[in-house]
């Protein structure tokens, strides 16, 4: 992100990129390890997965290799299945709501922490704990807190007189989806906060001073200075949040395993079950490839928008 912002600033300032020089062949040797590393750990699995998605791969083929080439049949089968379409819909609902809420909370926290007050740094670090905590820990804590018989949430709500009997949060479809969104927002909001805070600190204080002298209130300063100045950062944060949330697997798998029924079966869980529970590797690979396309399209859109803004 800093790289992107850096480039933007360079372009705005009118500094032209350096003229091309001939690069000696030996220089390529220095990047070779990095290239090999990326090829082995990123490109190969990706290509393997895409190759799988075009083949009829069951248990035998996954071990022995091979598998007949079936063209787009796996994709047609997946797209035609109600389970897949359901998982896609759940994924989008889950992602959009989580990103929206995490962004909102993150922005609120960032604006708050952008002021100077005693204990600010301590509070900022404390908030980050939610993001740093391993998911196995946080997801299981959520599971226990939301348990219907001994959960802390029920005890608290019961104590306040809001409920009179145990609510089984993770067992009812709607509350389960709400619960996993809540857990995701709790993790992602501090991440959004730290990025947005970096953006806020780049806005020159003189702008606010000038606005204040002109008589602009707090709300006006926020809508007319903060938001427009944060625009490029906002887009980056939203994209990062979307991509991370869209591919979330652990939080939901640990909390509900995609249940109750298929109420929280997002695409990654659907693909996992397809491949490793039901051993249909071809269609599982097709599902993951589709899963890859959505953030990819968004990224392309994002870079386009960024470039347009640069040119303008």
């Amino acid at each position: 992100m800093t790289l992107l912002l850096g480039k933007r600033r360079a372009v705005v300032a009118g500094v032209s990129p350096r003229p091309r020089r001939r690069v000696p062949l030996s220089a390529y040797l220095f990047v070779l390890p990095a290239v090999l590393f990326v090829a082995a750990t990123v490109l190969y699995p990706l290509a393997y997965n895409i190759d799988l998605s075009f083949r009829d791969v069951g248990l035998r083929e996954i071990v022995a290799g091979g598998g007949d080439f079936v063209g787009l049949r796996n994709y047609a089968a997946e797209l035609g299945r109600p389970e897949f379409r359901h998982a896609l819909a759940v994924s989008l609902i889950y992602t959009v709501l989580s990103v929206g809420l995490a962004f909102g909370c993150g922005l609120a926290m960032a604006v708050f922490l952008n002021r100077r007050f005693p204990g600010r740094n301590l509070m900022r670090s404390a908030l980050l704990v939610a993001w740093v905590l391993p998911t196995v820990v946080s997801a299981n804590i959520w599971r226990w807190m939301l348990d219907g018989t001994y959960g802390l949430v029920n005890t608290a709500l019961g104590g306040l007189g809001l409920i009179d009997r145990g609510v089984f949060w993770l067992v009812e479809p709607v509350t389960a989806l709400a619960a996993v969104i809540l857990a995701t927002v709790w993790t992602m909001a501090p991440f959004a906060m730290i990025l947005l805070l970096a953006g806020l600190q780049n806005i020159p204080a003189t702008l606010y001073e000038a606005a204040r002298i002109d008589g602009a209130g707090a709300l006006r300063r926020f809508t007319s200075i903060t938001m427009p100045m944060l625009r490029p950062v906002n887009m980056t944060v939203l994209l990062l949040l979307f991509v991370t949330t869209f591919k979330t697997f652990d939080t939901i798998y640990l909390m509900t395993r995609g249940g109750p029924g298929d109420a929280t079966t997002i695409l990654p869980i659907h693909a996992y079950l397809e491949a490793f529970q039901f051993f249909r590797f071809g269609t599982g690979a097709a599902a993951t490839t589709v899963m890859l396309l959505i953030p990819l399209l968004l990224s392309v859109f994002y870079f386009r928008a960024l470039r347009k803004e640069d040119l303008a």
Partner: protein
Amino acid sequence: MRFGGRSFRRAAALLAAGVLVAGCGGGAGGDASTAEGGKTVSLWHYYGPPDSATGAALVRLVERYEKEHPGVDIQPRHIPFGDFTRTLLQSAAGGDLPDIALINAFHTEAMVEAGVIQELDDRVAAWGKKDGFFPASWRTTQVGGKTYGLPHLADAYAVYYNTKMLDKAGVEPPRTWDEMAEAAKKLATGGRQGLAVSGIEGDEGATGLIIRILAAGGDVADVDSPEANEALTQFKEMVDDGAMSKGMLGWNEEDVKNQFANEQTAMMINSATYVSTLRTEKPDLEWKVALLPEDEQRLTLLGAENLTITAGSRDPDAAWDVMTWMQRPEVLAEYLPDRNKLPARLDVPAGQDETRAVFQEQLKSAWVPEGKLAGAAGEVFTHIQGALQAAVSGSASVADALTQAQQKIDKALAG
């Protein structure tokens, strides 16, 4: 910043050499283990890490073999259950399988289809002791009329009940499912449930309903039936009138055991796995075990693992020797109480323990998925849990939940 010319080059050279050495080391390490003239047998399992109660029992068993067979080194490796099949498949694709894999009995057919495990018919014939196994256990080793494993042990489900609570309520351990529903309702007082059963998402949470369907005389592959309807309707009614908790839909068997240990429920349906856990965790808890309720029949779902020799074993003879040694009655008589499981064989003495005797009696009526169902058991069970979830949470009627599950089951069995 600039790198100092010579020192940088030297560092880079050292680094490169280090990588090369590490590479050679890795290559040599593969054979080093078989050096000292002895044999090495690797064994993968999902019972637990060596410091867990269940994992330690297996380690003790393995050490006993090593003591009796100097020169043989067994290397057990624990892989968590959730990752076990995936790891085995990936290792098979990478040509890096262990000698022995201790697999879930219901995964035997899938592992055969994947070409991960070897056929054992000639060895079994030469061994000549296959008739000692429970028929249900033995059936799980059969795929297409051939033998692919040895049953390692068995487990059965039965009813654990809190004797104090039942005495106080004047309730006898139920013998039929109608009695069970009545007893559970009577026992559910003061925020406590009468009966706890695991109903968690996935195939694991299907066991309770499968046992109930079997009791009604139903077919697990045909749930759009009066028998399955009767079973699911009763479970739903028990949840609706508080005899069972809706929380069951989020509980695995361990959670159910905790409900019972903390006296949140008067009865539970669970496997023999928890007998000694309960004894050590809650020594003051007074409880007993009864056979499952009986309507048309009284069948438990068999819980079992099979010992298999993988297709990549470097020493199948040594592996077979370990496997058959583990099935000796005197070895099992010591190992099984330690592991909290039941023998898959008829010739192992039940011992003096009254509780284990009940489980062993229940094991005589065990059900295992067969034929087409055996190959798709995991998926079919998952859909049965789906029906339980839909009906109990109220998102579908009992009839609709079963019809929807049946459509998915038909697809799973056809594919």
